[in-house]
């Protein structure tokens, strides 16, 4: 039981972070507002989750200006892609073992 629970990543235990990773893994890049609307989070809440994922090196952000408005877009890193895939596989493995 223990060896596949090891692969369940603590960083993705929060629903918001899991959501951020799920969206970023299937999209090239997503901007802050779209992410906020899709996940139904507040500005501050999303910002703190993206910051912690960025510190882990799972996502990267790009800040730019469109006209005078700041625009932040996020994309997944190679490290994040590997970590999230591993997490998903662990979840599936867990379910498979449970169902036997």
């Amino acid at each position, binding site marked *: 039981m223990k060896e596949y629970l090891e692969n369940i990543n603590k960083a993705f235990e929060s629903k918001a972070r899991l959501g951020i990773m799920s969206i970023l893994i299937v999209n090239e890049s997503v901007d802050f*507002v779209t992410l906020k609307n899709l*996940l139904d989070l507040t500005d501050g809440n999303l910002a703190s989750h993206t910051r912690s994922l960025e510190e882990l090196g799972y996502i990267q952000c790009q800040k730019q200006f469109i006209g005078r408005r700041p625009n932040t877009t996020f994309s997944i890193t190679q490290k994040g892609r590997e970590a999230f895939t591993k997490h*998903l596989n662990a979840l599936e493995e*867990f379910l498979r073992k449970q169902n036997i």
Partner: protein
Amino acid sequence: MKNKEALDTLHDIKELMEKSTKFMSISGVSAVLVGIYACIGTGLAYFILNEQNSFDTLCNIPLLNINTTYQLALICLIALGVLTLSLFTTFTMSYQKAKKGYRNIFKDKSVHRLLWNFFLPLLAGGILCFSLIWQQHYGLTSSIMLIFYGLSLVNCSKYTYSDIRYLGYAEILLGLVDSFVITHALLFWGIGFGLLHIAAGIYFYYKVEHKQYPARP
């Protein structure tokens, strides 16, 4: 961690992946309406172009005679009218449906991708049709319209409900059959843009739209 928790998590992940890449606010009712417009358009074209004939041609399969520029202009006008009305209806109904889900369809990247992939083959086909009409080769216009419309649907099915591609396959097949049959363009046009849309819209309304969010296990 319990079994149900893990299942719910995977369900949430899948839903978010779909929601962020696909535009799901398309309504089956708009497809039915588009089909009805096309049927009315076909009927109008048939009655106007055959007005000099007697009523017993009603039982025959409609044939198109385009002999004068007046008739050509009329049939182009009907086709453009049906197209405009259809696009307007689809956009308005999708906009209304998207607004219920709190999505701004003008800023949504999935909408941009959907529109680009839908209109690229459609525009190419439209320009080709225009060029054929310009050179007075009327024979293949209806089959080209059907084929390119089918390709558009297949092409954009990746960015919305994937079932839409079956309608695309049907349109392509019908267009190809049409290209072998020399006459009866109006009949094929009516089947492809009218009846197929109505059938697809009804299927979509009952089988897909009302099963969008199934209860969780």
